[in-house]
């Protein structure tokens, strides 16, 4: 447990260069869309939540390559394996710090842009990004040691896994705007998150070991 907290604390201090870049792109896109759709506010109202979730998921999947890359390149993952300590703690700490640095700002931005109107939207962005990071971490771990043509492999592995997540979160928003009653959708997304957590913590150590061969 101590190791876990320590790992999180260490990672949080790191200067998040790539993350700021990604958030900046997001902000730019939102401003562009906002300007363009100022003529059709109704269209904007209906379309906005879906767009926000889609963009958040897209941005998360772009940033997944960096999840383990730095620790791989300097040999820390290899060293951790040799120490025989539990690698799951490391993986979980890594994913959680990544989410704290990328997911929470995304939730805040989405909230600001949508005026904090819909809690389901904010919850949706938070859980969808975390679920996507958990499942994408497996793909990211598998791609660590491959040679050329890496650029297409990670999105190819992650996006098909991410689409059900997006379907669930977007579908929840659509259905509640039509028929109300948001509570089951909170449960559904939370359930998906728990499944992803379980799957990821079993598959990620295996994937890291595979890359180390």
């Amino acid at each position, binding site marked *: 447990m101590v190791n876990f907290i*320590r790992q999180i604390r*260490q990672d949080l*201090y*790191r*200067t998040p260069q790539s993350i700021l870049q990604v958030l900046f792109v997001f902000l730019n896109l939102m401003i562009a869309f906002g300007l363009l759709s100022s003529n059709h506010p109704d269209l904007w109202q209906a379309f906005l939540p879906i767009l926000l979730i889609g963009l958040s998921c897209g941005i998360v999947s772009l940033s997944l390559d960096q999840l383990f890359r730095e620790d791989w*390149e*300097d*040999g*820390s993952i*290899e*060293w951790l*394996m*040799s*120490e*025989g300590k539990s690698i799951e703690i490391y993986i979980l700490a890594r994913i959680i710090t990544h989410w704290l640095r990328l997911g929470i700002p995304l939730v805040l931005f989405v909230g600001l842009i949508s005026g904090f109107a819909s809690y389901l939207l904010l919850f949706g962005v938070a859980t969808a990004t975390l679920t996507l990071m958990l499942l994408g971490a497996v793909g990211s771990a598998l791609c660590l040691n491959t040679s050329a043509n890496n650029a297409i492999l990670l999105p190819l592995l992650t996006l098909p896994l991410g689409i059900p997540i997006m379907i669930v979160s977007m579908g929840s928003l659509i259905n509640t705007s039509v028929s109300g009653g948001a509570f089951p959708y909170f449960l559904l997304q939370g359930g998906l998150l728990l499944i992803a957590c379980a799957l990821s913590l079993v598959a990620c150590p295996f994937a*890291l*070991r*595979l*890359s*180390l*061969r």
Partner: protein
Amino acid sequence: MTSHPILIVSNLTYTYAGRLLFRDLCFEVCPGDAIVLVGPNGSGKTTLLRCMAGIPESRPAIIKNKGLKQSYVGHLNALKLHQTVRQNLLNQTGATSERLMKILLEKRLSSLLDREVRTLSVGQRRQVALARLPLSETKLWLVDEPTTHLDKTAAAHFWEMMEKHLKTGGAAVLTSHAPVPLSKTKVITLNG
């Protein structure tokens, strides 16, 4: 040496990508042993070392004593660049501050203690990584190419440290291209 071996390699066979690296390799590591793996590039020295270190998973052909503690310093230093030397070493080994000071004084590295690793030269980083070995107080040291990037003084310090470790009952497995100036070594040659 008639003491019990602390690590036994028995019939280790390793193939990767259709190439056979070793077949039915057998040897023992006893306390006080320094085993040096030599061979041309690509002959599998690093792979053998990693197998013994249990990367990525422990193999049935490598039998270690129960509770054997090992330290591994690989080809990459595993140092976090944005942290200081002190933070790196304390986090990685769980040693106390006093012990850290003592070891680094011996290695003449104490002036580097609070500098960030990214400001150090390649040789200094290697010295910091190698400082992990005595700090962690483990019995078995597994080191891959210890003296790369080290100047003569630093290399001499490292071999001194190694002699001390072997005298106190520790064991080490190294790979090296350069000659190893230790008093007694067992050499295992791997062919291409």
